[in-house]
């Protein structure tokens, strides 16, 4: 009779890493559907292709390191990375762009550090920034949302998307790309905000056309994750608050030099995706709740600074990477007060 000899505790909660990752994937579905409504089916093609590449890369690295491949692929983390990266890049970016991005993310961003849990930088964002810097053309060619340009009958369907992404349609994307709302606002030097709203097709109800709904749905997905206690509110909320704070501070009522309203910032670009899916990446953020608040606020602040005064219209990726970089340092100074210890000291 052999009894197990293991340390306590003997009981274990039913949640496991794979289920956490799966939940994250589920929660992204509403946002993805919304994006596909506005921008067409390219996003699906991208997501599938990205997942394939991610799994391939992960398997390759694991093989090289002599690890059990199955065990690691099953944790779904590579898929989460791939999906988030695929969502972040323009729906009709060529396949090789996505391939390079995902490979960079999975191999250099993640596995060179020892794989899941060890990477200091958010792999998806590493992939995104590498692409943005290396292939700015492909990475800034966002299609126009549905019903914005007059001569555009419909957004591309799956077949169109396949043709566009895999390069069988020459120069196809260029035809219907258009600057994103954040870009428009950034480049604007003359018009007041209200005029922008009237004159530019990019603007919708309270933020960018299409983008506002996508953000909304990502926020809904995020709240579901919050409800399922996949992460705590600290990082995302403090990020949104910081962003809102700076936006309100510099809004100046909507002049031509205005940086845009808090509403506009919250529902433009990748704000909500960032707040609930990227800022919350547990691996690369600060660890304590206090630390996560500082971390979130740092991201919100950097986001606003770069959006307004930097070269990049949206800056989720950069702000997240910068905050990743600061995370260990934040951790060093935000250790929670242990039971029985005095405040602020050891």
């Amino acid at each position, binding site marked *: 009779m052999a009894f197990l000899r293991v340390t306590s505790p003997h009981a274990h909660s039913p949640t496991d890493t794979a289920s956490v990752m799966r939940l994250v994937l589920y929660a992204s579905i509403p946002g993805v559907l919304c994006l596909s409504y506005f921008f067409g089916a390219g996003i699906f093609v991208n997501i599938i292709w990205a997942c394939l590449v991610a799994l391939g890369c992960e398997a390759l690295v694991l093989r090289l390191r002599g690890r059990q491949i199955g065990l690691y692929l099953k944790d779904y983390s590579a898929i989460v990375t791939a999906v988030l990266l695929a969502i972040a890049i323009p729906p009709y970016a060529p396949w090789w762009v996505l391939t390079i991005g995902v490979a960079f993310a999975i191999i250099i961003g993640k596995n060179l550090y020892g794989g899941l849990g060890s990477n200091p930088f958010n792999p998806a964002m590493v992939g995104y920034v590498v692409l943005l810097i290396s292939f*700015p053309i492909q990475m*800034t060619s966002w299609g126009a949302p549905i019903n914005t340009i007059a001569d555009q009958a419909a957004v591309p369907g799956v077949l169109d998307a396949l043709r566009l992404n895999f390069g069988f349609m020459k120069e196809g994307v260029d035809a219907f*790309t258009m600057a994103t709302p954040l870009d428009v606002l950034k480049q604007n030097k003359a018009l007041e905000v209200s005029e922008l709203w009237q004159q530019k097709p990019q603007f919708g109800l309270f933020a960018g056309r299409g983008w506002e709904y996508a953000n909304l749905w990502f926020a809904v997905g995020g709240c579901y994750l919050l409800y399922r206690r996949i992460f705590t509110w600290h990082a995302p909320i403090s990020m949104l608050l910081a962003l809102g704070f700076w936006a309100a501070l510099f809004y100046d009522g909507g002049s031509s030099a205005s940086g845009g309203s808090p509403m506009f910032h919250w529902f433009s670009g990748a704000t909500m995706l960032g707040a609930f899916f990227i800022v919350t990446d547990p691996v690369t953020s600060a660890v304590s709740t206090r630390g996560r608040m500082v971390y979130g606020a740092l991201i919100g602040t950097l986001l606003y600074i770069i959006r307004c005064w930097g070269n990049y219209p949206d800056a989720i990726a950069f702000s997240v990477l910068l905050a990743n970089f600061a995370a260990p340092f934040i951790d060093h100074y935000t250790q929670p007060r242990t039971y029985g210890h005095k405040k602020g000291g050891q």
Partner: protein
Amino acid sequence: MLGKAIGKNSIILGLFAVVTTSMIALTYLSTKEQIIAQERAARARALLEIVPIERHNNTMLDDTVMVDSELLGIKESAEAFIARQDGIPVAVIIPATAPDGYSGEIRLIVGINMNGSIAGVRVLTHSETPGLGDKVDLKKSDWILGFNNKSLTKPATDLWSVKKDKGYFDQFTGATITPRAVTKAVHRVLLFFDENQELLIDHASLKQESNNDG
């Protein structure tokens, strides 16, 4: 003890100083001429690209005139260079700045033939996005050569903009702002030349004469 340590050390260091300095100074003296020549050559190179040596026989670097105008977008007055063939001006090279690049200013020089057509445009410095806006640099693409031989009337004034704004000039894929800025700046230089042609040439000739005198 203290005195001795200070004394010995400073003497040794001084000795080193003598030897090393002589070495450098001698090198300097022997390369001085060459260096000056090289520096001038380097400055002249950009000018020569616009107005090649076959078209003129003066030293443009020494044949300058100060210009200053809103139209050029420059903050302080700067030198314009004049190319002459046997004392007769053939072209002027005017500095300008496009203030509205994607990320900050773009500094240019624009060469204009005496007939008002463009001899050439070059971007001196810019901080546009690599891969996007930086194609205005000749090193990255020869888009900038598209200005050659254009003039105020060719194309017509309302076509002096990029295609996206229903103009004549190409933009880059995914980047409209940079080419738009450059195009506008070049156009303004043409306007400037148009307005100040007399002044420029006169001035230049005057200077030329005084040069000849001196």
